[in-house]
């Protein structure tokens, strides 16, 4: 991915005779950020777990072991069983699919919307900018949890797709603001004037010249957004309004932990999903930090 982009950039800037592209430099800076690299490795492991869930999970995640409700960890159930006798490890492994897909899909959706709206607002300016900016303000003031509760009642049923849809449709204004700011600044640069003088149309100007140069902060925002989406999904599923049972999610696995007795005496019911939420959010934030440092244009090597 990085090499493809850098290849494109290199081709475009070949005549400037730059030895190394911006993206190659960024990659080098990122690799020097040890915590970020470690975070990326753990994230890759979680992603692999999600993809290979069918192979890794020792049991069917919805199968009930009638002889073992809330059984402590054992050879058969390495992380014990939950309140209706299902294998906690298997559910944990399958649940990573939910968390990662919510994070990735919701964020992809709002990055696309945010980029389009932000670019349009900044490029056209005037009334278009005014209307789109106020729209951002309005959407930004919606409380996402309340909207999701509302959406659930309107759509009639809570589901993974509702959560993704609502997060995707509500999350874009910060991205749009970032893109708008970047494009506003870039619009005045000489290379943009040059491109226009050479006859580039609006679409070509935005897609080829403005957006690629505005993407760095968006990438960073998207990374942090992914962590946030994972947290919101966990909260919703904990409330019973996210992923529907028996599909496991780290959030709905935590619903077992609603009494002092469970908290104190049955840690296998809540420590594993809690730890996975913590771990995934933490490593994504590390990666985000690394990206931010690596892509910061003021740090040139």
């Amino acid at each position, binding site marked *: 991915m990085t090499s493809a982009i850098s290849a494109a950039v290199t081709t475009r800037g070949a005549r400037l005779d730059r030895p190394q592209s911006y993206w190659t430099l960024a990659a080098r800076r990122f690799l020097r950020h040890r915590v970020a690299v470690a975070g990326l490795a753990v994230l890759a492991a979680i992603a692999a777990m999600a993809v290979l869930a069918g192979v890794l999970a020792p049991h069917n995640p*919805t*199968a*009930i072991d*009638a002889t073992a*409700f809330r059984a402590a960890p054992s050879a058969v159930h390495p992380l014990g069983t939950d*309140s*209706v*006798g*299902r294998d906690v490890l298997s559910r944990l492994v399958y649940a990573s699919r939910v968390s990662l897909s919510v994070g990735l899909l919701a964020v992809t959706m709002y990055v696309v919307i945010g980029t389009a709206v932000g670019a349009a607002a900044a490029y056209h300016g005037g009334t278009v900018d005014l209307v789109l900016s106020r729209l951002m303000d309005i959407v930004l003031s919606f409380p996402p949890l309340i909207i999701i509760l509302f959406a*659930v*009642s309107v759509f*009639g*049923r*809570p589901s993974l797709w509702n959560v993704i849809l609502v997060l995707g449709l509500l999350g874009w204004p910060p991205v749009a603001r970032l893109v708008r700011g970047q494009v506003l600044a870039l619009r005045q640069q000489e290379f943009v004037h040059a491109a226009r003088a050479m006859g580039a149309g609006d679409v070509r100007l935005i897609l080829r010249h403005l957006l690629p140069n505005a993407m760095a902060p968006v990438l960073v925002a998207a990374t942090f957004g992914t962590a946030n989406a994972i947290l919101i999904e966990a909260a919703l599923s904990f*409330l*019973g*309004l996210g992923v*529907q*049972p*028996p599909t496991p999610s780290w959030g709905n696995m935590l*619903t077992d932990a*609603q*009494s*002092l*007795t*469970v908290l104190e*005496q049955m840690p296998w019911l809540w420590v594993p999903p809690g730890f996975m939420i913590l771990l995934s959010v933490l490593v994504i934030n590390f990666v985000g930090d690394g990206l931010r440092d690596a892509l910061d244009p003021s740090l040139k090597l």
Partner: protein
Amino acid sequence: MSTRLRAVIALALAAALLLPATVAGQPRSSLVAVSGMWSPPNNFSPINTDSAYGYYAVRFMFGSLLESRLENNQLKLYPMLASRWSVAADNQTYRFTLHPRASWHDGRPVTAEDVEFTVMTISDPRTQTNRGASVAFIAGMDATGKRAGGAQIGFRILGPKEFEIRTAKPVDPNFVFERFGYDMYILPKHVLGGVAPDQLARHPFFQNPTVGNGPFKFVQYKTDQYVEFVANESYHLGAPNIRRLFVRIIPPTTMMAQLERRDLDVTAGGGIGSILIDDWDRVKAIPHVQAVSYSAPGYQFMAFNFQRAYLQDKRVRRAMAHAINRPLLVSQLLKGEGELAEGPIPPNNPYFNRAVRPWAFDTARARALLQEAGWDFTRTLILRVPTGNILRERSADVIRENLIAAGVRVEIQKSDFPTHLAALYAANYDIGLVGWSGGVDPDVSSQFRTGATYTRLIHMSNQQIDQLLDEGAATADQARRRQIYNRFQEVFADELPYVVLYYEKSRAAVARRMSDVNYGVQGFYWFQPFAWTAALQ
């Protein structure tokens, strides 16, 4: 001046320090007791508070005519405001005599006029009330307990403390004693007599009910925190031993910790202040607490949407009853604190038919029945589950696995309770989980009689069931009634309007320092808090 001011401030501060101490501190005093329930009441109207929480608080301040209690599967009656009661040979005329010393908290006597005022208020079409069922059988009332225009009302005052009611038809006396005697609280005519019935629901008295007739007097309600009561020294059945009583609002998850810390003496029990099943073993192990589980009439059931053609074959419904591992729900989810029965009449009820056994857990039999009924094994049923009751939510996961094992595909849909109920009323479901709790009388017409309020949940109409329910409600002879309801339970198990999943026992806790707090049926105590005593510990 400034010294006096300072003294006043110091006193006020000291008082402010003392006050919360009596509430949140350890109730070690033998004069103070704390009871706990999960949610706050929204008002204290004895005829219209919105929930069992409100009625729990009301019952400390307001009395009913009688106390009823199940003893060895028989309904027993005890005096409360009424000291004597009798029924004439026609099973239609009931006479009550009020206790000579029964009085209001302001010193005025409780009279037959107060009872008449209560009946007339409840039955006024303009009054908002949920006590209609307490008067609906009196002559001159319609089925919802409202006065039919111009009809003669079957209520007669015989003396200052004596009155009689007349029912429209002969009925089982226990039915009248439970609904009219036990379920209805008496209102003070001298306080509320001048209020227009349509203004009553908003009257400030129901936020500040200072004139009651029960063993405790209202002091104050700290919103969402506690209701404070003080003993009624002139209570006609004896002054309470507890001088100050708090009903605190305690979330379910913290009830156990409060018991451990001795901050709580008595849980409200029955669905409004029970011990979480997760905490049950631990509460049983607290040395200074007695954990009490007792049979309760509340049960969970799986409703079928009878508008779906594919659920109308009773073999399909029986197949599902066979498919669900109900013994597992009781032994594992409820940790044994539950009972099974194939119908809406609980096992500890006098009318329970022991001959009707629940359909056994048998996946092979379930599959065979489905095949016999021509079930489409590719069809996916929507199982609607309300959030809130965590045990019910967990049971849904077991039910789904069980049904899948029998060949019925199931997709779970969870929603908040109001949304859930709306979907059920709109017939927008295949199968759905709901809970129910009734009284001692076996009349379950409100659930199963065609056209009644709650049949619209399951969209069912069954002539045979209608006939039996009508016959049962109109029969006064108890032996004959028993036959009718035995038959009803047989028909129910055969037709399966719904599958009763389990009867959950009520799990309550009482500090060992308390005595004479007895648990009974109906979700409430054997409610005689004037007899509660607390020892120093």
